[in-house]
């Protein structure tokens, strides 16, 4: 790891000023930054430690919305009683991510800034070509080992999977990210690679995430996060789904449904085609399975990741059926 200057910011204005400097990177939990610095993927000139800023770790939940400070730890949000009762998919996405130690370190703001786990991206010594690291250098994954790579939102420049869980639940429930001067939906905050794979987030120099806000809804209250992976715990998703469900008074007609996917796309992926196909329909297994297939419209595989096209709709359907069984 290259050495860097270390600077501690004690308030948000200081963090914003420092974040505008060339070569500066923010340090919160450190789980991505220090790891990628050791890999030689990032080489900050200055590390701005924002983890000591007070008042940015509050978790405030009402029936109307959850307001979560950027420095709240993943573990604290996952275990928060009102998050569990009013936004169960958010809690479930969090406790199924990483390990207990990493969740005690990683913050909510830092979680949104986590980079891809594409093994080619993480290994510059052996794979110099990576459009995410070095625009125009090419993509080592295309033509390489692609079992973990994305099938949705891919481009000729990049097929790296968005690896995390929380943002999948946030996208399903229309959460917003507060950048100070600007406020974006989490869905818009994440950028698909297109021709500019190096840009993963719509964040500008000098901007710092201060909070996320999740609107409350009946669908958020009756929600779940299902994560399918190669081992039972401490692993990234092969495919995951955040789903929320609201039924009409008859108890079987779908009034509102939210579906978002993880582990299969280049960004947290809202599956609106599935939602549109199911609104107003009866909660019936055949209907659900047929609609879930719509999530894979436009999917492009690179051989070894073909299985995700079959897997993801089944994960969606399992999540909807699980919610249908809960009264």
């Amino acid at each position, binding site marked *: 790891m290259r050495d860097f200057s270390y600077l501690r910011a004690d308030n948000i204005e*200081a963090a914003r000023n420092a974040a505008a400097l060339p070569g500066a990177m923010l340090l919160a939990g450190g789980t991505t930054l*220090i790891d990628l610095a050791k890999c030689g993927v990032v080489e900050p000139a200055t590390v701005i430690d924002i983890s000591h800023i007070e008042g940015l770790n509050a978790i405030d939940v009402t029936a109307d919305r959850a307001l979560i400070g950027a420095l709240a730890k993943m573990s604290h949000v996952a275990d928060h009683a009102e998050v569990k009762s009013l936004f169960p998919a958010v809690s479930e996405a969090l406790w199924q991510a990483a390990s207990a130690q990493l969740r005690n370190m990683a913050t909510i703001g830092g979680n949104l800034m986590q980079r891809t786990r594409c093994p080619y991206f993480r290994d510059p010594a052996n794979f110099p070509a990576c459009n995410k690291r070095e625009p125009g250098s090419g993509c080592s994954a295309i033509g390489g080992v692609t079992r973990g790579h994305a099938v949705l939102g891919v481009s000729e420049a990049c097929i790296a999977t968005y690896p995390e869980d929380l943002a999948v639940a946030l996208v399903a429930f229309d959460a917003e990210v507060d950048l100070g001067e600007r406020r974006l939906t989490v869905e818009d905050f994440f950028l698909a690679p297109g021709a500019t794979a190096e840009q993963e987030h719509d964040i500008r120099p000098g901007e710092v995430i201060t909070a996320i806000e999740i609107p409350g809804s009946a669908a958020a209250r009756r929600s779940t996060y299902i994560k399918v992976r190669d081992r039972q715990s401490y692993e990234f998703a092969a495919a995951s789904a955040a789903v929320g469900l609201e039924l009409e008074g008859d108890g079987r007609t779908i009034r509102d449904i939210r579906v978002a996917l993880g582990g299969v796309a280049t960004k947290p992926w809202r599956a609106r085609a599935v939602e549109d196909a199911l609104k107003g329909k009866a909660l019936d297994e055949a209907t659900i399975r047929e609609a879930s297939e719509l999530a894979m419209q436009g999917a492009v595989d690179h051989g070894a990741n073909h299985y995700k096209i079959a897997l993801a709709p089944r994960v969606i359907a399992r999540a909807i059926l699980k919610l249908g069984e809960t009264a």
Partner: protein
Amino acid sequence: MTSQIIIDPPEDGHFRNGVATKGLTPSPTTLSLRLTINGRDHALEIEPRVTLLDALRERLHLTGTKKGCDHGQCGACTVHVDGERVLACLTLAAQVEGRTITTIEGLADEDGTLHAVQAAFLEQDAFQCGYCTPGQIMSAVACIREGHAGSDEEIREYMAGNLCRCGAYPNIVAAVRQAAQELRS
């Protein structure tokens, strides 16, 4: 190191460690830190990039905390910061100034009486080579304290961040279960 409030970026764009400067002072290569580890204060002069793990092992010679993967994937370097389990390999030493750090060396009583989790690991033969064991024990102490040791299934889930290449997992689960019962009663 005294923490500073930066109001304006320095005109020359250069930061001195810990201080925003307007002059041309080059960045010094070391930080002066005080860390509180196992109840004792330690003064350190280190480069900003030094992790808590390297500070513990290489500077303070507290080698109970192990370096496995050094990338946050194995859990061998688990320590407690303000009572919560974290990975020392992904924590900068500079970042935990002012926090309370506990390592495996600080777990037993002053008179050498082992912590209930340490005793349970011995009784249940919860290790083979022993390299992952300090991390397993530090993780287990926190796991029980968090209330995440209620069943074998929950223990497996919440201890998943500690890998054991010898495969002592069944005995580790048994040790955590035993210690959790003892600490509850």
